[in-house]
C-alpha cells in the first residue's frame, strides 16, 4: 500500500485508488438520494403550506356585497349580503394568475335558478367595471341585470343566461334557432325542461305579451326598448325552464368569473 507523501506532485501516487473510488461513488449516491428526497419533501411542504393558507379563508373578515338574485324576487329580500372581503384573497383566473379585483364589481348569488349554468347559491360573481354593450357578441353569456322596478332594501340585481341580443320583433324565430344549438341541447336534458313547443308557446303567449304590456306606449314599443336580450332561467317556484325578455338598458355587465367560497366547515 502506497502511503501519503507530502509534496508529491501527482495525486494518483498519493491517494489509494480503491477507497477513493468507493468514497466518490458513496458521496455521489448520497447526494443523488438527498436531492430526490429533498425534492419530494419540498413539494409536500408547499402543498401543506398552501392548504393551511387556503383554510384561513374561514376567518377572513367579511364585507357587504350586492346580491344578484337567481330565483324568485320574492325570495331575495335583502339588498346586500356579507361575504369574505375579496381584497384579502387571491382570486385566480383559469391560468392560476391572481385577478386584479379593483377592475371588477362583485355580486353574491342568492337562489338556484342558474344551477344549470354552473352558478350556485352563494357564489361570488366578478363583473368587469368597464363592461361595454358592444362587446356582447358571442352567446350564450351570463349577465347581471338590474331589476326594472326595485324596492328599497330588496335585491336590485338578477342573473340570467342570455342567448340573443337584438330586436324584440325577431324573438320567436330566434328562439327556434337557439333551441337547436348544441349548448341549448344540454339544457333540454335537465329537469324543468317542458319541451320545445311549450317553451316557444310560453315565449309567445306569456313573455312577449308581458314585455309589450310593460314597455309599449299606445301599442308601440318605443325605440329605447326595441333592442332586447333573450335569456333563460330556471323558475325555482314552478320548477320550469323558460325564456325571459329584458331591454338592453337593464344590463349591468357580463359575468367573467364565478367562485364558490366554502366557509361553512
Amino acid at each position, binding site marked *: 500500500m502506497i502511503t*501519503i507523501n*507530502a*509534496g508529491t*506532485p501527482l*495525486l494518483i501516487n*498519493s491517494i489509494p485508488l480503491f477507497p477513493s473510488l468507493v468514497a466518490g461513488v458513496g458521496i455521489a449516491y448520497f447526494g443523488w438520494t*438527498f436531492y430526490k428526497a*429533498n*425534492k419530494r*419533501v*419540498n*413539494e*409536500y*411542504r*408547499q402543498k401543506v*403550506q*398552501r392548504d393551511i*393558507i*387556503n*383554510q*384561513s*379563508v374561514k376567518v*377572513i373578515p367579511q364585507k357587504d356585497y350586492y346580491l344578484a338574485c337567481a330565483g324568485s324576487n320574492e325570495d331575495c329580500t335583502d339588498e346586500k349580503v356579507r361575504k369574505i372581503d375579496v381584497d*384579502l*384573497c*387571491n*382570486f*385566480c*383566473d*383559469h391560468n*392560476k394568475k*391572481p385577478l386584479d379585483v379593483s377592475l371588477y364589481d362583485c355580486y353574491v348569488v342568492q337562489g338556484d335558478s342558474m344551477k344549470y*349554468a*354552473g*352558478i350556485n347559491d352563494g*357564489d361570488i360573481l366578478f363583473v368587469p367595471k368597464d363592461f361595454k354593450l358592444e362587446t356582447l357578441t358571442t352567446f*350564450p*353569456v*351570463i349577465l347581471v341585470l338590474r331589476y326594472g322596478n326595485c324596492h328599497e332594501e330588496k335585491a336590485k340585481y338578477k342573473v340570467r*343566461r342570455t342567448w340573443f341580443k337584438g330586436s324584440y320583433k325577431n324573438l320567436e324565430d330566434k328562439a327556434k334557432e337557439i333551441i337547436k344549438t348544441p*349548448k341549448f341541447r*344540454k339544457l333540454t336534458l335537465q329537469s324543468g325542461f317542458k319541451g320545445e313547443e311549450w317553451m316557444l308557446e310560453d315565449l309567445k303567449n306569456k313573455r312577449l305579451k308581458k314585455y309589450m304590456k310593460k314597455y309599449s306606449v299606445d301599442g308601440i314599443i318605443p325605440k329605447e326598448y326595441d333592442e332586447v336580450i333573450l335569456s333563460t332561467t330556471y323558475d325555482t317556484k314552478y320548477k320550469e325552464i323558460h325564456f325571459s325578455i329584458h331591454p338592453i338598458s337593464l344590463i349591468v355587465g357580463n*359575468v367573467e*368569473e*364565478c*367562485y*364558490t*367560497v366554502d366557509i361553512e366547515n
Partner: protein
Amino acid sequence: MELMAVFIVFVVFLWETAIIFLDIKSRYPKKNFVGNIFGLNARLFFIIPIPFVLGAIYKKLDLIICFYLALFSMVWLKWEIASFANNIESYLVDIKPEIYPNNFNQ
C-alpha cells in the same frame, strides 16, 4: 490554530445567513418562503464548507489540485447565491388564500 480561525469564520457566516433570511422576510411581510427554500439552504450548507476543507487539505498536503477545486467550489457558491438573489420572488409565496374559478356557462 488556522483551522480554528476558519471554523469560527464559518460559524459567523451561518449566523449572518440566518440574519439575511430574517431581513428578506421583513422585506416581504405579506409573503412567506415556499418549501424549496430549504432545499437551497441545504445545498448552500454543503457547498460552503468545501472551500474551507479543501484549503485545509491544501495546506496540510500541498496538493495543487485542492487549490483548483477550492477555486471551482467558490465560483459555484457565488453562482448559487447570485441565482438565489436574482430569483428571490420565486422562493416566496403569498399568504393570501388562493381561490380558483368555477367552470360555468358550459
